[in-house]
């Protein structure tokens, strides 16, 4: 193999130049490393765990770093039945997450209270938090959660960063 080292500008070393907008670049950074806060409250959390394991492998979408500290997480995945006893704790953890932050309501319970029309269960986590993506299912399959993640990424890509 011939040695073809040239001096001056080398596109193999310097790379191609990409022209973009700051909005698009920042959103691209954000959407590809969404660190989840796994708010696993009931059975749906098992599917959340499956989404993190090797068969479904959530790390393909940059979200494998489950953070149990709200200070380090970007997206809260509410996976399970939110009881009234837990509701304000969920809200407090959400409040502790730094901006920007998003919420995925995973499963029928987190979205609407599910089959629990009862005195003990909050009828949808959107009563206390702003939810970005709802996932249907009881429980949703891991693919559905990954689909929600991709939808959230698409949403983040369109958000104005500097406009506000």
């Amino acid at each position, binding site marked *: 193999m011939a040695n073809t080292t040239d001096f001056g500008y080398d596109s193999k070393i310097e790379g191609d130049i990409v022209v973009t907008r700051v909005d698009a670049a920042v959103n691209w950074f954000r959407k590809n490393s969404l660190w989840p806060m796994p708010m696993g409250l009931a059975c749906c959390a098992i599917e959340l765990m499956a989404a993190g394991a090797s068969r479904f492998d959530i790390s393909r979408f940059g979200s494998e770093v489950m953070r149990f500290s709200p200070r380090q997480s970007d997206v809260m995945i509410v996976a399970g039945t939110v009881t*009234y*006893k837990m*509701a*304000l704790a969920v809200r407090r953890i959400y409040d502790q997450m730094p901006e920007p932050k998003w919420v995925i309501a995973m499963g029928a319970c987190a979205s609407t209270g599910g089959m629990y*029309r*009862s*005195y*003990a269960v909050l*009828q949808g986590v959107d009563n206390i938090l702003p939810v970005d993506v709802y996932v249907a299912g009881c429980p949703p399959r891991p693919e559905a959660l990954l689909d929600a993640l991709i939808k959230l990424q698409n949403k983040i890509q369109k958000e104005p960063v500097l406009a506000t």
Partner: protein
Amino acid sequence: MTAIELANQLKARFGDLLAAPVEFRGEVTLKLADAGRIAEVCEFAKKSLGFDMLLDLSSVDNYGDDPRWTVVYELYGMGHHCHLRLKTDVSEEKSELPTVTGVWRTADWHEREAYDMMGVRFRGHPDLRRILMWDGYPYFPLRKDFPLAGKPTEMPDIAFTKPAPLEGGPFVTVAGGKDTIAREPRVRVSESDAK
């Protein structure tokens, strides 16, 4: 040793306090007339008859009847493998009976649950707090006169509740209906409510 023999021994010791043992589908039930002596009966069942385990303790709301509460004790002996059920009635005015935590320590959380859900108090319990709902929740949600949807409450910084939308429900399935339409969950008004 069978459950019915053990039940008869218990009856022999306490006489008229206990009704005659009833056997139904292989399970023996004894009814205790005076709830105030439940701890004594349990103590004897454990110490002398080998019922060393309390499987469960639950409460029943006989809404509309007097006495309103029935407290049910499920006893089991690991030595003789016999199961015995004790029942005792408690009136609504009293709503109190002695604890059996001194006999079986496991009764502690069972009694807390019965207190939390039904509002029956256990005299002498070491720590009779709510176990599922939070301290300060004003209702007893398993009582028959408590609506399924719940009632609104508010405790700042602790918890709140709101009635759940039932859309005319509850939705009730009917076992053994002739087709799916007859069986599936629907709003059904029971005949006793309809009149």
